[in-house]
């Protein structure tokens, strides 16, 4: 407020300040009220309003000379009795709603000070409605009445305030602007007053516009122009009576009331005859023009406000028509293009346009013409028994309320003919320039404070159901129930004698086909060939015999064999969180998958993962879903005895990386920790011996089990940054996966054991414990830290260092490279490809479960730190 305003309008600003200050103090005090106190106040107010309804209606009719006394009484009762019944048991204080499934609650915070505008058409009922809503929500309310209805509006406000005060409401929580020539100016000042929190505007378009222009939050209403469609399936006689009730209600002052009727030709004559029988007057074409000339103001092109709420006879007289005094409605058939007809607009008086149509399409289109002639977002109506017609109409019409088989005026109020919220303020959405299409009420006068508690997502543990684990367990194949099987394998399976071991043990009456085209990295073309083989053989069982590539390929083949219509795009999208991924996998599988690993590394026989190479992008694509899990895994270590030492070490280092990464993963659990720790221990124990004496089945057995345990761990906890780096390096320089993992291990253990630059946000990972987990692994291995490192005995850093040294010693012992340089990759080539390596690793899904959130620059540093030939840490 500027000093110039004070000077020009002495006393005005002070008056406004006084009103707003009263309201502000009351709003502050109201915050302390309990639900019980509020409900007692609201009840007292409702009773007072019910009691005063006839008196208030009478005063309103006298002051405004508008509408019908009996209907105004009814409106006052709707605003008090009906509204009270609806809001009586609603919680509006403290915790108002709980969402146990979402672990969340809502708490109500009052809006504060509301400036409420009241219209001339409903001067008392609107005040009753808004006062009750304000009290129920612990808000203060200042009424700014329409100048032509200020006495009646303020009388209503006064009656309700006194009742509220007697029931314990805060002093000054209802105030009002007195009737005076300065009323409009005071309202304008309040609209921009800093202590007003919300403008609740119900009134003429200009006032609503001013409210929206104030810069404050505003609940406004838009203009209406209600089209009502009488479909041929309607109960015509009932529809006619409802429409007469509605359009004559308070002489048509209600903005949701019927403005133009669209009637199917099949029922047109019946409807018109009934309208006339019940006292409506059907105008001739000439008379329609006369009515249009008076109902619509030629200067504005809008309804003539002088005739708002006047009787049909009064409008007819103004138009020069001679009708019975008791005439209910002037029915005006609208000829020609409806979009150009003067009367196809809102007219809050008992004048109604009539349009005859020959189909539902034409009916809805003409309704749209009316709807879009100044009434979008407000109200429409349909009379029909055909549900499809109702739905089609409602889908196309742009209205916040589409009233079915009810009078639209009383139906729009809500609570009278239907279960809409009772209101005297009809939100019109963006169609009417409003923020909501609600029947505005108490729910719009609350600030909702959402209190979401941390969600602890359900963690699960899943793996292959039947696992046969001892040497010689390949014999289990003899008891597999199958009549038709396809063995998916690699070309080397036959030469190593594995294929014949399988074929000899399948039932004699089983029809067997072999698909042995799987290479080092299966691509989609190869997988499609395998699926074609299956479609030809129609197997009930698929046997995957080989290393990780074979088992992954077989998993994908089984999925697409079972579900031929599956689209790869629907299941292969990258994702941040498994629970929110867009991928949709089938719920079940039909064909039995038996996995027989011939290496001890990948653990694919027990994981829900499968990887294939996309030949177009040259990237590896990961599929993740429990539907990929095999039904049976046969871990017969005899099948690994012929593995050369190099491959034995490569694959075992992959398994070791699985175990170490699963151990510190953000998805790790007590279940995966146990598996990971034992897998690490077994690898440390068995790998050197298995490399030195590959034919010793005991060490092979231990290593086989270790890989499987580590597979179960990553199958549930996933991997981390080490795998991301290895995937990137392996793809760029064609390095076997396990070997690529090994060159990063010392770097990533140190990295993950350090305080993260960025913590990874995840609801089920509430505490950074990666360093302690590594220390636990060291203790599990009975490692003792070297005192020369200067670290305290059994300190976490000391144990992490001991673990890194043990990993170094193990990999050196089995002749595994420990750095990128040791892979034979030249420094220049490495550096030239470093940006691409970093990008690829950074985008790898494995990063998502790492205990540290690797930032881009750190990914580059991890590569660089892993380059030089290693010395013992």
């Amino acid at each position: 407020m500027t000093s110039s305003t004070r000077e020009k309008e002495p006393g005005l600003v002070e008056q406004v300040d006084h009103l707003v200050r009263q309201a502000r103090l009351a709003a502050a005090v109201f915050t302390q009220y309990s639900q019980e106190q509020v409900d007692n106040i609201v009840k007292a107010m409702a009773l007072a309003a019910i009691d005063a309804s006839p008196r208030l209606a009478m005063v309103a009719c006298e002051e405004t000379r508008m509408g019908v006394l009996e209907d105004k009484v009814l409106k006052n009762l709707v605003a008090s009795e009906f509204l009270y019944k609806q809001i009586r048991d609603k919680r509006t204080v403290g915790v108002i709603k709980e969402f146990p499934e979402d672990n969340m609650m809502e708490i109500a915070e009052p809006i504060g000070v509301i400036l409420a505008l009241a219209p001339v058409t409903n001067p008392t009922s609107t005040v009753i409605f808004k006062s009750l809503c304000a009290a129920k929500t612990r808000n203060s309310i200042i009424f700014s009445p329409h100048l032509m209805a200020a006495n009646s509006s303020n009388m209503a406000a006064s009656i309700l305030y006194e009742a509220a005060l007697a029931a314990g409401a805060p002093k000054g929580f209802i105030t009002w602007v007195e009737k005076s020539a300065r009323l409009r100016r005071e309202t304008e000042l309040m609209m921009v007053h800093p202590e007003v929190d919300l403008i609740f505007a119900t009134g003429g378009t200009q006032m609503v516009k001013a409210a929206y222009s104030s810069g404050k939050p505003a609940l406004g209403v838009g203009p209406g122009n209600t089209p009502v469609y009488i479909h041929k399936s309607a109960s015509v006689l009932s529809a006619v009576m409802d429409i007469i009730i509605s359009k004559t209600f308070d002489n048509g002052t209600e903005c949701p009331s019927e403005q133009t009727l669209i009637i199917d030709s099949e029922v047109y004559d019946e409807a018109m005859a009934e309208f006339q029988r019940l006292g409506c007057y059907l105008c001739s074409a000439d008379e329609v023009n006369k009515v249009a000339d008076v109902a619509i103001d030629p200067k504005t092109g809008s309804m003539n406000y002088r005739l708002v709420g006047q009787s049909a006879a009064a409008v007819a007289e103004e138009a020069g028509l001679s009708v019975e005094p008791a005439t209910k409605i002037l029915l005006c058939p609208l000829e020609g293009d409806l979009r150009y007809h003067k009367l196809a607009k809102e007219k809050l008086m008992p004048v109604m346009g009539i349009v005859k149509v020959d189909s539902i399409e034409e009916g809805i289109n003409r309704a749209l013409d009316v709807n879009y002639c100044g009434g979008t977002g407000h109200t429409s109506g349909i009379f029909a028994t055909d549900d499809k017609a109702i739905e089609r109409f409602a889908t196309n019409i742009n209205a916040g309320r589409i009233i079915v088989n009810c009078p639209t005026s009383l139906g729009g109020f809500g609570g009278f003919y239907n279960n809409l919220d009772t209101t005297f303020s009809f939100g019109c959405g963006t169609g009417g320039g409003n923020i909501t299409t609600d029947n505005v009420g108490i729910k719009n006068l609350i600030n909702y404070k959402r209190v979401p508690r941390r969600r602890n997502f359900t963690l699960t543990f899943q793996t292959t159901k039947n696992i046969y684990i001892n040497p010689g367990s390949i014999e289990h194949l003899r008891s597999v129930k199958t009549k038709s099987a396809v063995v998916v394998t690699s070309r080397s399976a036959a030469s190593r004698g594995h294929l014949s071991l399988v074929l000899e043990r399948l039932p004699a009456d089983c029809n067997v086909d072999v698909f042995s085209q799987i290479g080092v990295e299966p691509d989609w073309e190869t997988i499609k060939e395998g699926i074609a083989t299956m479609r030809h053989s129609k197997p009930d069982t698929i046997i995957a015999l080989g290393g990780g590539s074979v088992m992954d390929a077989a998993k994908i083949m089984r999925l697409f064999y079972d579900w031929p219509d599956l689209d790869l795009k629907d299941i292969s999208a990258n994702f941040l969180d498994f629970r929110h991924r867009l991928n949709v996998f089938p719920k079940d599988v039909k064909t039995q998958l038996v996995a027989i690993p011939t290496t001890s590394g990948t653990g694919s026989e027990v994981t829900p993962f499968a990887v294939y190479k996309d030949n177009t992008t040259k990237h590896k694509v990961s599929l993740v879903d429990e539907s990929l899990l095999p039904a049976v895994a046969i871990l017969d270590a005899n099948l690994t005895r012929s593995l050369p030492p190099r491959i034995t070490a490569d694959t075992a280092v992959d398994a070791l990386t699985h175990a170490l990464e699963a151990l510190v993963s953000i998805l790790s659990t007590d279940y995966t920790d146990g598996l990971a720790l034992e897998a690490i221990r077994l690898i440390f124990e068995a790998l050197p011996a298995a490399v030195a004496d590959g034919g010793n089945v005991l060490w092979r057995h231990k290593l086989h089990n270790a890989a499987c345990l580590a597979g179960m761990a990553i199958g549930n906890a996933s991997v981390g940054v080490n795998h991301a780096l290895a995937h990137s390096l392996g793809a760029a320089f064609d390095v076997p996966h396990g070997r690529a993992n090994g060159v990063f291990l010392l770097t990533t253990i140190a990295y993950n054991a350090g305080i993260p630059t960025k913590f990874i946000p995840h609801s089920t990972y509430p505490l950074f414990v990666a360093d302690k987990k590594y220390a636990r692994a060291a203790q599990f291995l009975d490692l003792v830290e070297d005192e020369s490192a200067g670290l305290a005995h059994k300190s976490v850093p000391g144990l992490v260092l001991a673990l890194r040294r043990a990993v170094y010693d193990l990999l050196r012992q089995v002749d595994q490279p420990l750095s990128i340089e040791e892979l034979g990759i030249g420094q220049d080539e490495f550096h030239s490809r470093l940006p691409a390596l970093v990008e690829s690793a950074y985008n790898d899904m494995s990063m998502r479960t790492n205990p540290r959130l690797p930032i881009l620059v750190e990914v580059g540093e991890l590569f660089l730190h892993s380059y030089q030939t290693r010395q013992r840490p």
Partner: protein
Amino acid sequence: MKHTETVKIKVALLRGVDEVDRLLAAGSGNLELDFTEVNFISVEGLEWLEELQLRAQSQGATVTFINLQPEQYKVFKVAHIDSLLKACGAPMRSGPSC
């Protein structure tokens, strides 16, 4: 340095407290109102507290508030009365503070 007297305000502050008015009128020193037990402040109570500040100011004394429960401290916050917030130790601001 002026003597400061502490007065414990009773459960509901519905109107002015005579004892406080008397002490201030006696001009014996500064006042400290202890709100530990207060669980409700009415509009009349708020108006009295504001007026109390004005009277104290004119006498060169201070009236401070201590141990406000959050529910009543919030009443001061929502009321936007600068002098009451200052009595709770907030810095003085021009216009509504929150």
